[in-house]
């Protein structure tokens, strides 16, 4: 049994402390230890992006990061987007533009889009499609997801 590590990780603005095996994937830390289940697991080869969260503001696939790597750092998940009971413009946009159907890819997709808009507040359609190219959706065909991101970009302008 490997030596457990004590990690301090800030999640959505709150400090968390836990003793975990080093091999615990960040996505399992988020889902099973912190019990925020909005971040999902959709594959086992780092392809689908359902597990996307922001690590120090940058998008990562939390299934391909060990939780210990996030020690002393900040994570933002889908649960940390809405503020003061108000939906983030991206969350609003996905609702308004029918950017989701089963909802399983949605948290990861929104987090990727969030990172995209932070880097590029006025993306073209092509830039949006490239920006979410690490996120798979099986339901929507992406067309309304693009519209949802455009909605948010306009609202946040």
């Amino acid at each position: 049994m490997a030596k457990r590590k004590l990690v301090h990780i800030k999640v959505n603005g709150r400090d968390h402390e836990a003793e975990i095996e080093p091999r615990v994937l960040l996505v399992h830390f988020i889902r099973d230890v912190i019990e925020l289940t909005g971040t999902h697991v959709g594959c086992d080869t780092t392809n689908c992006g359902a597990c996307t969260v922001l690590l120090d503001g940058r998008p990562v696939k939390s299934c391909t990061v060990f939780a210990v790597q996030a020690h002393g750092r900040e994570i933002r998940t889908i649960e940390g987007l809405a503020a003061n009971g108000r939906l983030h413009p991206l969350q609003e946009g996905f609702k308004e533009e029918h950017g989701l159907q089963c909802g399983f890819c949605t948290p990861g997709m929104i987090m990727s889009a969030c990172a995209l808009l932070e880097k590029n507040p006025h993306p073209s359609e092509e830039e949006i499609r490239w920006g979410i190219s690490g996120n798979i959706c099986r339901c929507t065909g992406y067309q309304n997801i693009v519209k949802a991101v455009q909605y948010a970009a306009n609202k946040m302008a």
Partner: protein
Amino acid sequence: MIPQSFEYLCPETIPEAIALLQQHGDAAKILSGGQSLIPMMKVRLARPEYLIDINRIAGLQYIKEEDGFLKIGGLTREADLEASDLIRSRYPIILDTATLIADPQVRTMATIGGNLAHGDPANDHPATMLALGAEVVAVGPRGERIIAVTDFFLSVLTTALEQDEILTEIRVPAAVPGSGGAYFKLERKVGDFATVGVAAQITLDGAGVCRRAGIGLTNVGPTPIKAHRAEECLLGKPIDEEQIRQAAQLASEQAQPSSDLRGPAEYKSSMVKELTKRALARARERART
């Protein structure tokens, strides 16, 4: 999906990291970006007993021109290469390459050092570095040494790095007027490994004659391939359509692809030719501006 158990070590300096590598030998692996290693650990193809996380070591992330070289720190993230004005304006072949690696999330974590040190012929930077004539800096218990990229890739997943060395820097000869390069990658979809990738970097003199040519091939052999015969045929000549075609033909003859889910070997050889044409044409375009 679940890796085997391991001890996690987090050195703060390079000497510390090297000491740990020495101590644990083959039972240890370096954790850089982790975007190649962690997936292998999750399917238990890689089972290191010790994981040495070098991400907390300061001073390994930089992109700068100095002493006639473009110097990139080994821990520099692909996303940082993408965002760098220096890379975009003076080394667009590296921007081409970084942008085509995996996807945005992977690029946040993945490092150029890891992309080279992993020794996978399917990774993209190796071909580009071959085309650029780059060298890497390896630091170990015996000190620092420079390894030309042409001597770096030995066989599948095997590089010239000793087990107790860390790749700390990549050095590319500084861009000169008349130089231009491009990386083309044929992939089944965005995020895939290359079916075939071709990097071409040339330097033209004032008369448009080729003074330097570098061509690297991705994923068509057990290592990335330097298409030196194609390079030689371009030297001393203007890069016209006929020259490009000849070079492309020679490059495809040097490829040793295998048939797999990405296509039959003969297709890949043909695509080396096609992409070499396209890469050289774009390189020429960039060299002229």
